[in-house]
């Protein structure tokens, strides 16, 4: 091993020991470094040069300029080569970037041939050979408003075209998840928190998911989704009822009832009223609901079921004290769908194996969901412009609801690509990330995808349901049925003490009132400053007010950070401010810039004021209702 290699590996080991190990274990075969006419290095791969054999530095400068001209916030490079382009880009533009190298052999070649130590020490630069890592870095570092651009050189594109396609999908999907999460947050935060507060009077009386722990260790869990392939193996579930814990997504409930199977739990966390998913007959009394704390209140009030357990979401940012007072310490990681929540719940309960069925994450031949679900008749049409037009019949609508969806592609369980769409890709990506975390943790819980169609889920074992049942469920010999266990656990439950919950809510209410006060005060100061500017005062004259304004805002942000869930509620305001900072073209005149920035801040504060006013009222109402529930001494 030469000195360049050793120095590079040493630098890499400090940041990514796993990649360093891979490179050390790789070898270069049949690729020779050649000297260029300008005295640098190049090489041929599959008979063609990867860098100019005349002047690779000039070539790289041009390429770097090309990338810089595109104005991407987050450039993603496919192919490291001998790092000329990366070096030129960092020198001319800088900023963070991700470099993905599809070939371990070429990674080794680069590490042996050029000094990469400066690049490897640069914490804004990520070099990886792992698509999962690419996605993770994007999700961790790219803002939803960032433009993420992919750049590669012609030799890489030609020689690694399949890998390039996979890379493009991974990047597109990861940034899609980022944007989707923001859109979901912005659209749903207020409704979710309202639901949470309105549900509290019920949740304090209901058993939390936590009481199920220690009762299902080693028991198989089947998570049933409503993907189009469900009808291929749904009938097999009747064989395992009572032996395996069956948690069905709400959309899969009716198809199960149709074959006469009542799942042990139906899991739901819809923020809107969705009574049409239930039968509204005595059949509903055969099931237990596993309801998310953010579900629409009607789920707690209107559903006549055997029992309801509550799971608390991690989304609310965990006021650990409040949750603990309601008997909750575990919040499942949400992945955007109830089946992803069920997966984490299964892991928490130490169920084994955890089995997916009906988790297609892709369109089937006839549509998006299994027949018999709430979606009724479905029609699907592929369009030339990369869209699929989906028509579904839905209760309450005379005509089918028709929508266009952009097509995204995933690898299918048979290796061929399958047609998917944005939200399923998000869920799928989440599960793949989760599986990596699960497998890396060394957990012995087996994760099996027995879905008979749809997308392949990296990290899971893929096995037909019949084989899964034969191997892992038929062999079970246990005295207590699932129903026995659940009845036993329910029998031992007693509701929480409401008094401490009320005290905690009063503290949170005080926080909201303080933010309301501070936002109002800051906006009053902003108005004074802007009025002065209008009257011709310059920045020096407004200095006292500006200093006080900065102090106000600093204090407001500190308090905002500490108030339960308020920062998340204000996601849209934060996003708008981020966008203002990013997109606003800086004025040459400091005074004009001040006016613009003040305007953006005032808008942000106004959003906080409206939120706080609304939720203060809800808190007051909730505290009164809980107080009325408290037993009174006679």
């Amino acid at each position, binding site marked *: 091993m030469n000195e360049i290699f050793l120095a590079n590996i040493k630098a890499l080991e400090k940041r990514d020991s796993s990649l360093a190990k891979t490179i050390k274990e790789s070898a270069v075969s049949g690729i020779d470094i050649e000297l260029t006419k300008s005295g640098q290095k190049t090489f041929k791969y599959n008979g063609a040069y990867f860098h100019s054999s005349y002047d690779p530095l000039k070539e790289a400068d041009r390429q770097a300029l090309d990338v810089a001209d595109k104005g991407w916030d987050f450039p993603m490079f496919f192919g490291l080569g001998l790092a000329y382009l990366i070096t030129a880009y960092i020198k001319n533009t800088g900023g963070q970037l991700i470099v993905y190298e599809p070939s371990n052999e070429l990674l080794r070649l680069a590490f042996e041939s050029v000094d990469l130590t400066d690049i490897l020490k640069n914490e804004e630069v990520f070099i990886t050979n792992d698509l999962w890592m690419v996605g993770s870095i994007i999700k961790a570092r790219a803002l939803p408003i960032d433009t993420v651009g992919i750049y590669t050189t*012609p030799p890489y594109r*030609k020689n690694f075209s399949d890998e390039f396609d996979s890379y493009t999908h991974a990047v597109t999907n990861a940034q899609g998840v980022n944007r989707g999460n923001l859109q979901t947050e912005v659209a749903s935060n207020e409704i979710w928190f309202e639901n949470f507060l309105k549900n509290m009077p019920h949740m304090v009386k209901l058993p939390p998911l936590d009481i199920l722990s220690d009762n299902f260790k080693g028991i198989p869990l089947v998570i049933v989704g409503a993907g189009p392939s469900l009808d291929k193996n749904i009938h097999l579930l009747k064989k395992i009822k009572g032996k395996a814990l069956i948690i069905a997504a709400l959309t899969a409930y009716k198809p199960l009832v149709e074959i006469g199977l009542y799942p042990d739990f139906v899991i739901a966390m819809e923020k809107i009223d969705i009574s049409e998913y239930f039968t509204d007959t005595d059949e509903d009394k055969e099931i237990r609901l596993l309801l998310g704390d953010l579900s629409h209140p009607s789920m707690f009030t209107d559903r006549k079921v055997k029992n309801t357990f509550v799971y608390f979401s991690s989304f609310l940012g965990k006021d650990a004290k409040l949750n603990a007072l309601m008997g909750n310490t575990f919040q499942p990681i949400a992945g955007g769908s109830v089946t992803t929540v069920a997966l984490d719940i299964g892991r928490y309960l130490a169920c084994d194996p955890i089995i997916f069925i009906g988790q297609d994450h892709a369109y089937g031949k006839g549509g998006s969901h299994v027949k018999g679900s709430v979606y009724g008749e479905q029609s699907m049409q592929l369009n030339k412009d990369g869209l699929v037009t989906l028509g579904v019949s839905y209760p309450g609508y005379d005509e089918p609801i028709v929508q266009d969806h952009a097509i995204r592609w995933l690898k299918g369980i048979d290796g061929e690509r399958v047609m998917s769409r944005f939200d399923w890709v998000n869920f799928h990506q989440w599960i793949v990330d989760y599986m990596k975390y699960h497998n890396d943790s060394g957990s012995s819980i087996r994760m099996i995808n027995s879905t008979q169609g749809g997308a392949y889920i990296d990290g899971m074992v893929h096995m037909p349901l019949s084989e899964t049942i034969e191997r892992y469920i038929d062999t079970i010999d246990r005295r207590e049925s699932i129903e026995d266990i659940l009845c036993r656990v329910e029998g031992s439950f007693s509701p929480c003490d409401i008094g401490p919950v009320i005290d905690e809510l009063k503290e949170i209410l005080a926080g909201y009132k303080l933010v309301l006060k501070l936002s109002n005060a800051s906006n009053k100061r902003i108005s004074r400053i802007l009025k002065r500017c209008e009257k011709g005062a310059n920045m020096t004259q407004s200095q006292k007010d500006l200093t006080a304004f900065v102090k106000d805002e600093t204090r407001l942000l500190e308090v905002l950070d500490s108030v339960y869930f308020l920062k998340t509620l204000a996601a849209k305001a934060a996003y708008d401010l981020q966008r203002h900072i990013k997109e606003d073209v800086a004025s040459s005149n400091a005074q004009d810039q001040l006016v613009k920035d003040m305007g953006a801040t005032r808008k942000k504060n106004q959003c906080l004021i409206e939120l706080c006013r609304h939720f203060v009222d809800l808190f007051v109402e909730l505290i009164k209702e809980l107080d009325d529930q408290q037993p009174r001494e006679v």
Partner: protein
Amino acid sequence: MTELYIDGSILEYEDTEGDSTIGECIDSINADLFKHKRLIFKIIVDGEEAKKTDSQEFKATHIRDHKVIDFTTITLAEITLNGINVCKDIILYITKGIATITENLRAGADAEAFRLFHPLFDSLNELVATITAVDTNIEHFNEVLFKSSPSKLCDQLVKHLGEILKSRDAGDTILVADLLEYEVSPLIEELERLLLNASSTDETP
């Protein structure tokens, strides 16, 4: 008997055996024109302009087989200037073509680039042929026009064109772009300088 004209005037000649060839006629006329620094520029045979007048096949044709043969002549100076101007135009086209092709190749737009190959190569071949013809004519009259011989440059150009085609067939687009930018372009620039110098000095005959 076949009528022969030269620049519109009838030409007296003898073909007693009836076996004189056009080639012999051309040689004889050129020998007479030499001292006037003129040469045959165009030959119209029976009303149609003859192509490939240098070919053995054409030269071997008997005069008696035609009714009228009309020779148009031109001065060395005129034909040289014509040739230089044609070359300048071709070079303009070649320079743009090289820039577009290398840009496309470096951007990975191979199909776009290779679509322009044919016309570029045709132009390069035409440039070489025209410069060679000009140089040959100049040499024929024992004149000196170029500061250095363009034929060496043309030979190098032809060699690089061969390498380019080989690289293209091997899919090595980086090398193709490099050869065009670093080898062919400088040669074209050098040829252009030779032509500019030739056309701007009193060396033009």
